[in-house]
């Protein structure tokens, strides 16, 4: 029996990858949830907003690299974040002004706003392809690893290695900072409280003198910021390819719904539930158990609960179960 090897193996293949993927989903789900609570529609354009933010970050990174800025071992794209956040926010406000505000003024049903968001999604998708093209780009120019699997193996004389990528570390740290900021903002500041009041009861909050346009403006600013950071971090971790952000929308919505739409804590929990459920159920446990159990205890099988083919099915199964047992999501959110 060899507990240390088992723990290292578990961290390398389940804990760390799930943590960073969960952070990426959580940031996305947080943006979706905020829009839903305040404006009462599902913003399907969120994935493309993330892609747009990442694209702006890359464009700024190229400019920075041209003038020789580098913060090795960290990737250069981190310092382009503040400017790209501003540009993404401006883009969000522009989209809101041109597309969403008209339907909001007419008190349109939320399903109409949802369709509008799909239109915005396709438009943004096209715009991104026009500006930067559909190609795959590796944007991580810093050090690749914080901890290398081979070093761990050698230093601690273990069979298993543990690798932590620089991008995973950055993702986790930035997510932590951003989420703390948003919770502080929503719970402690007056503006944040007015946002919560507005989302809780629109009519009552209007009567008590809250300016709805201001609340919506703030919501878009936060959403733009979240989208830009989440998109850039995702691109940094995997590689930037506009196509994949379209496929990211589905797990993001699953996270938001599982956690409870409209509840910020739920969005974060949901992100991790979705990220881990995919890995845990499809993981082959043979090697992991071989460290824990006596030698001749194991059969030849891979000890895999489900084949990886069913990866997507797992997150949707969880979604269905949650909706049947607790339609409001894990944390009580708005019923949809």
């Amino acid at each position, binding site marked *: 029996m060899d507990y240390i090897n088992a723990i290292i193996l578990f961290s*390398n*293949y*389940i804990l760390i*990858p*799930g943590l960073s*993927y969960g952070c990426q989903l959580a940031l996305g789900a947080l943006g979706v949830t905020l829009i839903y609570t305040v404006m009462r529609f599902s913003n399907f354009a969120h994935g493309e907003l993330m892609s747009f933010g990442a694209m702006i970050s890359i464009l700024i990174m190229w400019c920075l690299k041209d003038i020789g800025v580098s913060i090795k071992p960290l990737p250069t794209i981190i310092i382009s974040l503040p400017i790209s956040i501003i540009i993404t926010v401006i883009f969000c406000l522009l989209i809101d002004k041109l597309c969403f505000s008209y339907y909001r003024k007419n008190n349109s049903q939320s399903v109409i706003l949802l369709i509008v968001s799909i239109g915005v999604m396709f438009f943004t998708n096209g715009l991104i392809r026009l500006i930067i093209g*559909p*190609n*795959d780009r*590796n944007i991580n120019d810093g050090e690749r690893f914080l901890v*290398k*699997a*081979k070093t761990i193996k050698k230093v601690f004389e273990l069979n298993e*290695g543990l*690798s932590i*990528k620089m991008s995973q570390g950055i993702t986790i740290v930035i997510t932590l900072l951003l989420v703390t900021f948003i919770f502080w903002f929503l719970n402690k500041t007056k503006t944040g409280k007015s946002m919560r009041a507005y989302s809780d009861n629109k009519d009552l909050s209007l009567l008590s003198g809250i300016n709805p346009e201001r609340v919506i403006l703030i919501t878009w600013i936060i959403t733009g910021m979240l989208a830009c950071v989440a998109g850039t971090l*995702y691109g940094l971790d*995997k*590689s930037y390819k506009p*196509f*994949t952000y379209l*496929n*990211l929308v589905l*797990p993001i919505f699953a996270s938001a719904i599982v956690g409870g739409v409209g509840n910020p804590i739920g969005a974060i929990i949901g992100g991790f539930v979705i*990220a881990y459920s*995919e*890995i845990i159920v*499809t*993981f*082959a*446990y*043979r*090697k*992991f158990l071989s460290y824990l159990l006596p030698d001749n205890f194991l059969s030849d099988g*891979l000890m*895999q609960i489900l*084949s*990886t*083919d069913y*990866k*997507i099915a797992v997150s949707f199964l969880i979604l269905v179960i949650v909706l049947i047992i607790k339609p409001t999501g894990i944390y009580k959110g708005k019923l949809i």
Partner: protein
Amino acid sequence: MSKKPIIFLILFLVAASLLFFYKQEKEDFAVKLGIIFGYTGPIESLTPDMAKASELAIKEVNDSGEFLSGKIKIQGIRADSTCVDAAAANAAAERLITSDQVNAIVGADCSGVTTSILQNVAMSNGIVMISPSATSPALSTLPDNGLFFRTAPSDARQGKIVADILIEKGFKKAALSFTNNDYGKGLAESIKKNYESKGGQITISASHEDGKADYGAEVSALAQAGGDILIVAGYLDQGGKGIIQGSLDADAFNKFFLPDGMIGDSLPKAIGSDLNGSIGSIPGTDSPGAKTFENLAKSNGFKAGPFSQESYDAAALIMLAMQSAKSSKSKDLKDHVMDVANAPGEKIYPGELSKGISLLKQGKEIDYVGASSVELIGGGESSGNFREILIKDGKITTAGYR
């Protein structure tokens, strides 16, 4: 009485007659070839060079000035197969046939969309298709009314080559990840069958979806099954790359086998030095034709990348078959494809298409060898020459031919 109906009638007549003359002109002077590749989608980094290769063959025949009556110019029309979306590919092919009225089609590229276009569009319209890169074994036995040919070999053959290379290099245990479509499944089955019959062991054979957000789960499962090498039967711009990157990051595998869908310059560029020492296979020959084609491509401003030889040959075969049939119609040329592709006759290499055309005009036989040593067997597919690949110093190099 209003004059409106009369004006409309006149306008209608003018428009109809214009259309009529326009159509007349089309039929008299132009032969059109549809070039349907996935300009967007999982192999979008390969298709521009493939299309340019086909267009180079067309240009060559046009420049000869001898094609059919001599005045006829051939026009290549591109359409996007998307590689994966069968509905979009069918629509694109339908448009080529009904609106552009192409005489034959070069393409499609990926096995799934090729099957779909063949069954739903080409067969019902009686249009010949020659695919340069659809390699699924299923296409060998599909009923095609004699309309479908391919200048790429079936993956049943590639599976054998892959198994041979792996056993020779001493890899006894391998994990296998394949893209979840006709191409990936067909190739994976063929590799597994051949490898196991030669004494190798596949520890796990798991599929991956293309364009996914995260490949952590797939990589974990593959890593736990273990093996000396990971065979990735996927696409280089898609999940295949994600699987390799993930495996390297987690230190799960450090050697990879890359079948034809994974060979391209963008992969070593994206992955970096960690890919060095990985091996692969792709249709290709060391024939003089391949060299000539490389130079031709260079002087025409594109790279002789993966499947561009086959694309050149596919377009060339269609045009030579048209000349041999003395007709640009698919129903006539389909019976001549095998004749011009195989012996007997004078061998025709890339850059010699005008010679081929004039030989056919004189009533002589030709044996089109082309850039990829075309030799059509069975129901009209390439017999299959393969190039063994070794990734060295971040470059794709040739380790030998099979």
